[in-house]
């Protein structure tokens, strides 16, 4: 058990290390560097050479990678090429805002998704299930920018109930985001609820069709007890991994939704950084987002491992 946990932790660390290598080499391979971004049209001849020397860009790439990676490990992400602010300050505010958006969407969406998914499975092929499943497929397939645009049209344009665009500055206290955040949260919650609902439903149905549930029914276990004791614990466990993927997606900056609603989160910062060719900032954001993804998935793996004794054996691990 302990060895398996350690193994997973190590694999996670290796993945983050590989991510940092990929990001660094990708940015390295693309034309242009911090100096061409900084100097713009003046980036030629002696000035370019001086700047590169000053920033240490003339040293070999492997050395610079080691510098960058070890600084990042200490929490120092360097400076942004454009705003001359420390990246950790710049990213900090945006990360906080993205967390607020993601966690609010989760708080709204998770209970709805689980309750709806469980009900849909218990009323399988009845009208409730058909309606919920159709809604879920609609919410999952329609592009985010379309559902977001429609939400703005209806609730801001036609009804005038809610602000359609976020005007609060990035470094404002979280409470200032309140009425403006409702529509982006709704747009996000729709997508994630649909995904989790579908997973919970199919996982529930699989368990409801299993031999041990039939056995429980045959030996006269009351319906309620059967659902609570036999079905739910077994059915909800596999949902952990899909929830984790969704959480990672939410926390990793939901670019399109943030752009539509002008929400000052990590995703919009990322788009801005790429457009401005602020490569140091791009590297930092990519590293943060990927680390969040790995950590969240790792947590889900470990939770499943702890909650499901069958996975703790070598045989279970292979399956």
């Amino acid at each position, binding site marked *: 058990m302990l060895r398996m946990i350690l193994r997973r932790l190590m*694999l996670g660390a*290796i*993945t*983050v290390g*590989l*991510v940092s*290598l*990929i*990001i660094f080499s*990708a*940015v390295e391979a*693309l*034309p*242009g560097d911090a100096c061409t971004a900084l100097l713009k049209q003046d980036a030629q001849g002696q000035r370019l050479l001086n700047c590169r020397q000053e920033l240490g860009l003339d040293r070999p790439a492997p050395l610079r990678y080691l510098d960058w990676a070890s600084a990042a490990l200490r929490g120092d992400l360097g400076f942004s090429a454009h705003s001359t602010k420390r990246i950790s300050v710049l990213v900090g505010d945006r990360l906080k805002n993205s967390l607020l958006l993601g966690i609010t969407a989760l708080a709204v969406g998770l209970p709805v998704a689980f309750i709806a998914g469980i009900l849909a499975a218990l009323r399988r092929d009845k009208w409730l299930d058909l309606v919920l499943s159709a809604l879920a*497929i*609609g919410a*999952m*397939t*329609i*592009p*985010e*920018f*379309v559902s977001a*645009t*429609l939400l*703005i*049209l209806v609730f801001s*344009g*036609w009804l005038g109930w809610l602000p359609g665009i976020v005007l609060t500055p990035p470094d404002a206290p979280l409470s200032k985001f309140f009425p403006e955040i409702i529509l982006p949260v709704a747009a996000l919650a729709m*997508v*994630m609820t649909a*995904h989790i609902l*579908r*997973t919970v439903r*199919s996982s529930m149905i699989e368990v409801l069709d299993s031999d041990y549930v039939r056995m429980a029914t045959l030996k006269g276990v009351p319906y309620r007890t059967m659902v609570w004791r036999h079905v739910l614990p077994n059915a909800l466990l596999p949902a952990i991994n*899909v929830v984790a*993927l*969704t959480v*990672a*997606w939410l926390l*990793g*900056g939901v*670019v*399109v939704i943030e*752009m539509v609603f002008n929400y000052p989160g990590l*995703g919009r910062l*990322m*788009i801005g950084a*790429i*457009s401005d*060719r602020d490569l140091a900032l*791009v590297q930092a*954001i*990519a590293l943060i*987002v*990927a680390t969040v*993804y*790995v950590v969240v998935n790792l947590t889900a793996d470990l939770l499943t491992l702890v909650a499901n004794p069958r996975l703790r054996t070598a045989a279970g691990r292979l399956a």
Partner: protein
Amino acid sequence: MSTVHANSAATTVNTERAGRGRGVVRTLREMASRPSGAVGLLLVLMHLFIAIASPWLVPFDFKAISASLILNPPDAIHWWGTDHLGRDVLTRTLLGGREAILVTVVATPLAVLWGGFVGIYLGLVGGKLDDVLMRVVDAFLALPWILKMLLLIATFGSGIEVLIPTLAVFYGIPVIRIARAAAHNVVARDFVLAARARGHGRLAIIRRELLPNVLDALMVEGAMRWSWMLLAFSSLSFLGFGVSPPTPDWGLMVADSRTFLAIAPWSGLYPIVALSSLIIGINLTADALAKTLGVDRAQKAPI
């Protein structure tokens, strides 16, 4: 003597092989017999037809700007109204899916091909190579798709010649996982063992033993990839990183019409309906395909 043995092993093995040999026509007919499949196939075929035929169908020039026609509601001449530059919305909506469909229809098979081949190969050989490459796959999946795409687009532009290979490469990476898992289910079976015992090479085993058994899962995955690629393509256009104006594109049309949507909903709603109907059509088709082939369509979060 030994050949006789191998042959008899091969015959018993053949009966063990799952599915396949169903034929394209029969699969399509079976899909169409499901309500979801019939609707899905109809939507997809309609969009493909419009994408091919629209240059001869459209009533107006897609880039003809007119100051006197700005945001005109639908009437007898402009059936679906005009946009903020006085261009015909019907014309632009009919043409608006061409580039998206062209790019994704080319990139999807490429992605499934290379991802599928690598995945099956890794599933067969296993070992160190498998361990290392799967870590790299994990690392790539940990990065948001839009970051990977935008880094390349910001550097090389957003022409078809950039978008097709970029989408094909990045959307092939998750296919590796699917194909590897599907191959894993088959590799341990007796008929693969028999083929190995007969002394077949890896490529022959992949082609004759693994591929037929993994193909169904790959086709369903391909259908899903297609809809995700379309989503990615339109999102990029919506954000201003995809198709460049004045070429009509649904994502771009939605972005352009956002400011006027409350006063001129027709300029945005028609492209929204067009794009959504194609994506829903692909998803229904993929669902029907999965059910017809008996493949468990995996539930995944959008990455």
